[in-house]
């Protein structure tokens, strides 16, 4: 037995000897992995490997020794977890000793030490001894890059696991590391070395007397000037180095005395990147510095920052300079003061004020804005700084406002005041009396009101914004101020000439009404109500255009101020009342007036969405009203009076649809269930009990034999049921769906059948997968197939197919591909082909009324991409197979798909479609041309290399299209001509004379917009290959 065991042991050992020999003498690489694998599997121990290596480790030839140690190190790297403590001790002793060996051996020795540094079983004390040996024996910077990297790895490994031991070394460790990294040049190693220095500082290793040395050894790389070589496999970016060096430099206040002079010097340099890096580093330093560190350098820092902001041509330098000033001020504000110390913040801010103040008095000159920005950057840093600066600047600016009389100067000054006021919003003051703005309130208000009455729109606009900011300050404005403010806003809301101030006034009213609902409902709403009544009378008399627009403004003002629930309770009844009045027999209401009211209602609904209670209030109040009006209008009447029918016009219905949709989407499911239980029976059973004023001459039966007027109201049903949350159960769903399918294929009235199809699709999209859904789908498919066969309602059946397909495509339903194919088949249909091509546009676009995400439809994010990948190959195939007269249909369908796809997704796919797109350029259909050009334009910008292969075709086609009869095509073609200049210049140069000559013609185009594009395209072509471009 024993003999057998011994034999077994010998056999693998024999194999081991062979492997070792192959590696060391035979210079083969394979055996190392084999040996490591065998050690891992337990075939032999590390000791046996050492024994097998025996003689080669002691060989007098350094290359052989190196090879031997290399094998051992490679095995250790893979098996360090198996080592016992005893073995580790011996190995470490061995390796430390070998560090003294020939330089050829060192790389392998370092590899071995790296393996051991990862070893958990390393006994205490050895880490220190290894590092000491390395610091003593190895001159790291004379090693190749890989080996230097190994040394950094050893240090990193020990720092991660043996922090306490290393700290025992004291400042010697720091000094040793300084020597190791001194002179490092490789960016890969620098990233690791910076990381180590950062850890040294942040983990509080002792730096001893070596702070300045450590600073020198790292700061010599500042500012980083490194451009990665092209095709760099290591992927180190300049930005990586900048950030890791910045982390080191800004990690401790102890560097401050050395770093700040360096930063000041580099900000003053001429190189843009050095300026930016210095300012950003300064910014980072302020997070850890205090007054002590900054004290001596403040004047120079301020001088540099001021100069940069005043004089720079670069927006980034300006932004970084302001950010640095901001954090400097924040840093000074943060420091705790000793009682006897001078407050640096005060003197620093006084300095800034002294240098900037006088520029604020010259609102025409260029330095006014840089000065204001500097002051605002400092003021934004802390409440104390803000007080100090505003208490100095505000009186000055208020005085300047009155000194300067021109509107544009006043506007600049007010804009600066606005900037300072906005800063105040950042700080909340506990004590009401301490608020620094209180003292200026009256002056500010009178100034703002002066601006609001100024004839200059620009000044008015700034005044309105300032008013909004003043209003947002808690408890600043008195009720008297508010009444005045509301009066001004009311006046501005009815300004005729300029729409800008009017829009701004409405916005400000909305913002302020949310804060001061009482002021607005007592001073503004009654005035608007009065105005509305007057409007009704005027309208009844017959319109004048000015009165009409006044009426419109009034409606918009009403919806704009409905930002608070209590105001909605006043404005909504007003609007509904107005709508009723408009439809009372006595008045001749035009379509546009009714639509305007609906738009106002919709805006109110949008504002209610945020608050569930207002949302329900709106829904409950407005929807029965709208339905009642519509049902009333749909009743067949003998004396066909005009105003009632207004409500049944397509545009008016569309406006009502969006009101109902907006009022429904945000309802909570249980409230929505209450509502659905009344509205569905209204349409299915004619149950009108919940409508106000519900005495109608005959029954409401839109799905039965009702008049076409009644059928049109299905659009309103659609708006409601398609906006409900998915969890709301719809009563009588089965019957509803059957009625909808029936109506959708009814040939009498296209708009009601489309509404029915949309409604059906909207409901289908939300149904959970299951038998019920399958049944409805079958129902629809049968109906479509029956309808598509030659007959009177082919186009209705097609519409149903289109909408059902869309509903399914959006939710990735498996049947969608089948329906899409059916649709594609119709592209070659002589009658429906062009409509089918346009249908693709609908499939890819977002609807506004049904199947929207807001309306809780199931819309998968990537549906367009998916549709593209699933169907474009088939479309392309279809195009090639199709006969000449229907080919444009395929191109058009394809154009729609490509056009709607997000450009980044489209770009990688386009090169495969390129030949087709080039062919499409010759298609005579304007839609195809336009869409193809809009596909090609980004492609020219993004993939110039691919496109340059086709430059000949592109130039001639684009030039051809630049004289197309359609203006949009001409513009797009010229934009493509412009984009062509992105192609490599040598490819374009042969065409330059020809293009410049050809583009002279559109310069004289009869349309200005075309000429504009021609000018910019031709200008770019002139620059091609010219010096200085």
């Amino acid at each position, binding site marked *: 037995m024993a003999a057998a065991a011994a034999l077994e042991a010998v056999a693998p050992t024999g194999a081991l000897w062979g492997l070792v020999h192959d590696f060391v003498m035979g210079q083969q690489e394979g055996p190392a992995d084999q040996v490591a694998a065998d050690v891992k599997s337990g075939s032999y121990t590390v000791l046996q490997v050492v024994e097998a290596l025996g003689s080669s480790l002691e060989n007098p030839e350094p290359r052989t020794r190196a090879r031997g140690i290399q094998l051992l190190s490679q095995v250790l790297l893979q098996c360090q977890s198996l080592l016992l403590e005893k073995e580790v001790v011996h190995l470490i002793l061995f390796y430390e000793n070998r560090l003294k060996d020939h330089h050829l051996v060192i790389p392998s020795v370092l590899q071995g030490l790296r393996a051991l540094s990862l070893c958990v079983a390393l006994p205490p004390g050895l880490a220190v001894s290894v590092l000491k040996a390395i610091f003593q024996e190895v001159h790291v910077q004379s090693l190749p890059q890989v080996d230097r990297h190994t040394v950094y790895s050893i240090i990193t490994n020990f720092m991660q696991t043996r922090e306490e031991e290393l700290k025992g070394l004291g400042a010697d460790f720091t000094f040793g590391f300084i020597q190791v990294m001194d002179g490092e040049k490789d960016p890969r190693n620098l990233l690791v070395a910076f990381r180590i220095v950062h850890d040294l500082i942040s983990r509080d290793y002792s730096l001893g007397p070596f702070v300045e040395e450590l600073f020198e050894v790292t700061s010599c790389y500042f500012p980083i000037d490194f451009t990665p070589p092209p095709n760099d496999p290591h992927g180190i970016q300049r930005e990586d180095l900048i950030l890791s060096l910045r982390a080191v430099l800004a990690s401790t206040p102890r560097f401050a005395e050395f770093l700040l002079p360096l930063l000041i010097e580099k900000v003053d340099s001429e190189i843009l990147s050095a300026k930016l890096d210095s300012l950003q580093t300064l910014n980072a330093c302020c997070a850890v510095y205090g007054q002590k560190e900054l004290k001596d350098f403040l004047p120079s820092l301020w001088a540099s920052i001021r100069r940069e902001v005043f004089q*720079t041509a670069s927006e980034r330098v300006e932004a970084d300079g302001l950010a640095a000033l901001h954090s400097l001020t924040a840093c000074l504000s943060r420091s705790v003061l000793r009682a006897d110390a001078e407050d640096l913040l005060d003197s620093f801010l006084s300095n800034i004020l002294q240098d900037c103040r006088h520029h604020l008095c*010259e609102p*025409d000159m*260029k330095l006014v804005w840089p000065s204001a920005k500097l002051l605002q950057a400092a003021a934004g840093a802390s409440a104390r700084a803000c007080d100090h600066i505003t208490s100095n600047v505000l009186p000055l600016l208020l005085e300047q406002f009155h000194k300067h009389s021109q509107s544009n100067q006043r506007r600049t000054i007010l804009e600066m005041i606005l900037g300072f006021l906005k800063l105040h919003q950042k700080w909340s003051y506990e004590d009401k009396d301490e608020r620094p703005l209180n003292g200026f309130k009256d002056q500010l208000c009178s100034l703002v009101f002066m601006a609001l009455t100024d004839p200059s729109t620009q000044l008015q606009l700034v005044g309105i914004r300032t008013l909004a900011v003043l209003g947002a300050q808690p408890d600043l404005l008195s009720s008297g101020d508010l009444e005045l403010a509301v009066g001004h806003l009311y006046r501005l809301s009815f300004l005729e000439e300029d729409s800008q101030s009017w829009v701004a006034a409405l916005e400000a009213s909305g913002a302020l009404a949310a804060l001061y609902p009482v002021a607005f409902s007592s001073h503004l709403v009654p005035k608007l109500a009065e105005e509305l009544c007057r409007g009704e009378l005027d309208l009844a008399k017959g319109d004048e255009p000015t009165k009409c627009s006044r009426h419109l403004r009034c409606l918009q003002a009403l919806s704009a101020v409905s930002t608070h629930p209590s105001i909605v309770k006043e404005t909504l009844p007003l609007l509904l009342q107005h709508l009723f009045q408009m439809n009372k027999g006595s008045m001749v209401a035009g379509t546009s007036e009714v639509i305007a009211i609906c738009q106002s209602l919709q805006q109110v609904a949008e504002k209610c969405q945020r608050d569930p209670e207002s949302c329900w209030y709106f829904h409950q109040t407005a929807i029965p009203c709208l339905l009642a009006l519509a049902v009333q209008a749909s009743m067949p009447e003998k004396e066909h009076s005009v105003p009632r029918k207004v409500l049944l016009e397509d545009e008016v219905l569309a406006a009502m649809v969006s009101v109902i949709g907006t009022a429904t989407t945000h309802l909570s499911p249980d409230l929505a269930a209450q509502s659905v239980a009344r509205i569905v029976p209204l349409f299915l059973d004619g149950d009108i009990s919940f409508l106000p004023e519900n005495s109608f001459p005959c029954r409401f039966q839109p799905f039965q034999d009702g008049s076409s007027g009644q059928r049109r109201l299905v659009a309103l049903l659609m708006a409601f049921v398609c906006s409900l949350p998915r969890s709301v159960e719809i009563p009588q769903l089965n019957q509803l769906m059957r009625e909808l399918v029936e109506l959708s294929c009814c040939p009498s009235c296209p708009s009601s059948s489309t509404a029915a199809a949309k409604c059906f699709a909207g409901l289908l999209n939300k149904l959970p997968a299951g038998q019920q859904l399958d049944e409805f789908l079958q129902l629809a498919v049968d109906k479509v197939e029956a309808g598509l066969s030659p007959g009177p309602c082919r186009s209705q059946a097609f519409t149903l197919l289109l909408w059902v397909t869309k509903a399914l495509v959006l939710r990735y339903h498996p049947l969608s591909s089948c329906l899409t194919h059916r649709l594609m088949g119709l592209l070659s249909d002589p009658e429906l082909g062009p409509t089918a091509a346009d249908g693709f546009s609908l499939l890819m676009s977002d609807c506004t009324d049904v199947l929207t995400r807001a309306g809780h439809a199931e819309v998968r994010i990537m549906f367009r991409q998916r549709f593209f990948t699933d169907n474009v190959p088939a479309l392309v195939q279809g195009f090639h197979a199709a006969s000449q007269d229907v080919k444009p249909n395929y191109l058009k369908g394809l154009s729609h798909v490509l056009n709607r796809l997000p450009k980044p997704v489209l770009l990688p796919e386009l090169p495969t479609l390129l030949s087709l797109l080039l062919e499409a350029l010759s298609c005579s259909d304007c839609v195809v041309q336009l869409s193809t050009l809009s596909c090609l334009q980004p492609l020219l910008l993004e993939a110039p290399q691919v496109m340059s292969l086709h430059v000949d075709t592109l130039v001639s086609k684009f030039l051809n299209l630049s004289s197309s009869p359609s203006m949009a095509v001409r513009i797009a073609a010229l934009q493509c001509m412009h984009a062509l200049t992105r192609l490599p210049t040598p490819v374009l140069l042969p065409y330059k004379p020809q293009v410049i000559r050809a583009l002279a013609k559109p310069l004289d185009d009869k*349309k200005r917009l075309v000429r504009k594009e021609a000018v*910019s395209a031709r200008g770019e072509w002139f620059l091609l290959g010219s010096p200085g*471009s």
Partner: protein
Amino acid sequence: MVGGGGMGGGLLENANPLIYERSGERPVTAGEEDEQVPDSIDAREIFDIRQCRARAGTESLFLYFPHLIRSINDPEHPLTLEELNVVEQVRVQVSDPESTVAVAFTPTIPHCSMATLIGLSIKVKLLRSLPQRFKMDVHITPGTHASEHAVNKQLADKERVAAALENTHLLEVVNQCLSARS
């Protein structure tokens, strides 16, 4: 033609110039979108064509147009000839039927050494952007520059303009002024 191009980075001819408001983008009217209606070339259009935007960023421009772009008023509004009031729409006269354009520009200071260069840039831009039928005249606003006549004469002389554009160095500077890419 270019004089005094060698100003150092720190020194500006005019460090704190007056700034004028920029007119916004020209709004597109319904008529312009209507395929049928022809729009005639008007002063505003010439004004828009000829806005040589001296944008920040191109280092070498610092040397030549320091007073134009050396500092920025507002990050959203890099200084342009317009903001410096070098060109104004009222100083553009155009007649589409007669095919003539006259542009007057105003140097920021009476001794501005860049006047010829600005004039040349405007001229080149117009040559590239207007139909050939137009006859164009670029000159300094009367009474705004010390050597007004000399500059006007140079700009009016076709052969000198052509010769100037054969000077690569000069063409480079002009192209930089006209380059829309920043």
